[in-house]
């Protein structure tokens, strides 16, 4: 009886909490299906169903173009991060020397520095190196800022991987590069899943670097495309369109999450526990 009661209480707490968390999202989704001019109380959920706000948002934000830019930059950055972070972590975790310790802390120190602090000098480096503003320019910063965490994660993971397999490969005369590619890289797959998810998540959602390094509209990724709606915030007549664009912006990642839920949850947890 007592157990039954506490069980009900737990469900009640969870339901109330989830409801409070979810209510803003519910209103956003419901309002996004309204006519842009429908300004009646948004609390009357799903009182209308039309895609007019979506059609306006879709063209106004150039959804397909921005989606493509987001996919290309995120995928490209993540692939390169995995490649060069594993390469950096390999000697750091395997050679027991002061140099390794130094490199390790050198990379970690980058973890706590916020990008707002160094963005102007970074922009100057871009200028000095004549790096043009293209849709791929922010990738350089996505990769650089992902390196500390990824390297940290890989070093931690690699230290738990026994070296006997590598020694066997060495005996068979495999080169260093071959050993890294065929023996080490496949062994650290769990850390790679974790890196792809944690770093992919922030890169996909980041608006800061694209905001600084992209000037043309057709180069926008989804989050930075949302920035142009900032002025509409004051105009209630635009809210339904704004809600539709919020849903469009968030939808791709939510769909990926639904499909890969298990990998997401494990990847995030493993990333933190190892890190």
């Amino acid at each position, binding site marked *: 009886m007592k157990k039954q009661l506490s069980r009900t209480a*737990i*469900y009640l707490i*969870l339901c109330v*909490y*989830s409801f409070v*968390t*979810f209510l*803003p999202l519910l*209103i956003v989704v419901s309002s996004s299906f309204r006519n842009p001019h429908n*300004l009646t*109380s*948004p*609390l009357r959920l799903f009182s209308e169903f039309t895609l007019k706000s979506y059609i306006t948002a879709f063209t106004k934000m150039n959804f397909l173009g921005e989606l493509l830019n987001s996919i290309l930059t995120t995928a490209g950055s993540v692939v390169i991060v995995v490649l*060069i*972070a594993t390469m*950096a972590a*390999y*000697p*750091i975790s*395997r*050679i027991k*020397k002061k140099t390794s310790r130094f*490199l390790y802390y050198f*990379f970690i120190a*980058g973890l*706590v*520095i*916020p990008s*707002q*602090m*160094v*963005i*102007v*000098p*970074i922009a*100057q*480096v871009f200028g000095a*190196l004549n790096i043009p503003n293209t849709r791929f320019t922010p990738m*350089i910063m996505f*990769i650089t800022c992902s*390196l*500390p965490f990824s390297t940290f994660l890989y070093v931690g993971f690699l230290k738990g991987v026994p070296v006997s397999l590598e020694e066997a490969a*060495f005996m068979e005369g495999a080169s*260093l590069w071959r050993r*890294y590619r065929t023996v080490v890289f496949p062994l650290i797959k769990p850390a790679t899943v974790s890196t792809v998810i944690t770093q992919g998540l922030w890169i996909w*959602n980041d608006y800061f670097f694209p905001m600084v390094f992209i000037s043309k509209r057709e180069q926008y990724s*989804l*989050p930075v495309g*949302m*920035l142009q709606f900032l002025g509409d*915030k004051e105009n209630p007549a635009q809210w339904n369109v704004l809600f539709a664009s*919020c849903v469009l*912006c*968030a939808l791709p*990642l*939510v769909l990926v999450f639904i499909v890969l839920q298990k990998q997401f949850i494990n990847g*995030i*947890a493993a990333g*933190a*526990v190892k890190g």
Partner: protein
Amino acid sequence: MKKSKVREKSLVMPTRMYWFAVPALILFVVFWVYPVFQMFYYSITNFNGVNYDYDFVGVRNFQSIVKDGSLVNGIKNTFIYTIIIVVISNVVGLALALLLNLKLKGKSIFRTLVYLPALFSPIVVGFIWSYVYMPGSGMLSSIIELFGMDGTKLNLLGDFGKALYAITAVDIWKNVGTTMIIYLAGLQTIDDSLLEAGKIDGCNEWKLITKVKLPLISATITINVVLNVIAGLKAFDYSFIMTNGGPGKSTQTLMYIIFNTAFNKQLMGKASALSVVSFIIIIAITILMLRFMNKREVEF
């Protein structure tokens, strides 16, 4: 025997392996470490971010950020923001994780609902909550009016005393799910036999949590606290998207002030001085925190 082992090791793992780290090092040094040094250098100049014709001004930038109050204001707001995030995210995240770690039906649905906001871009979150807080037709105002009260007066983002807390709540809403997931992973590593032993020793549910579970996940607590402290000290998004630092200067966090001073006011020297001080604060807090946490973990 020992000698041959050492030699063998150096054969399998030769020093030239360090070449593998070169691509990462080049990127990191050119686009991160060098700019940090530049920032230190600019802090003693009157560089405006565009024109390279600048002069050295010594400590004048540092004097100016103290005199105009931006440093103290930024530190105060950032610290309030950080403390609230660390305390509430961890308490709520841990409580949710403890509940969701029980054998419940449909717990994965709750987990998904709580985690969902973590998937959104800060810009989307900023828009959603700008609507929630909007006076008049916003969500909170509408709900208040539903109960027959006057909701038009509620303007959290326009209130000097409340705006900072309002944007802090947004950050918690977005990130508490991540904290919860990490706690859940920590709780799942606890061996059931330890909990059984606790029960046999006569622990009630509360004692089981405080005496057995929490000490066993102390490493997880450390990680979550550190992650939340770092996130809090980096606070920028919602001041930038939702309030523009206002009303007045009430939601200006350190990172917001730095960005605003560098980009809108074009006072790169002053922004760099603020960055240098923030840099020292962040590094000091990180080191202190890791030291303190490491000691505690050993004690358990």
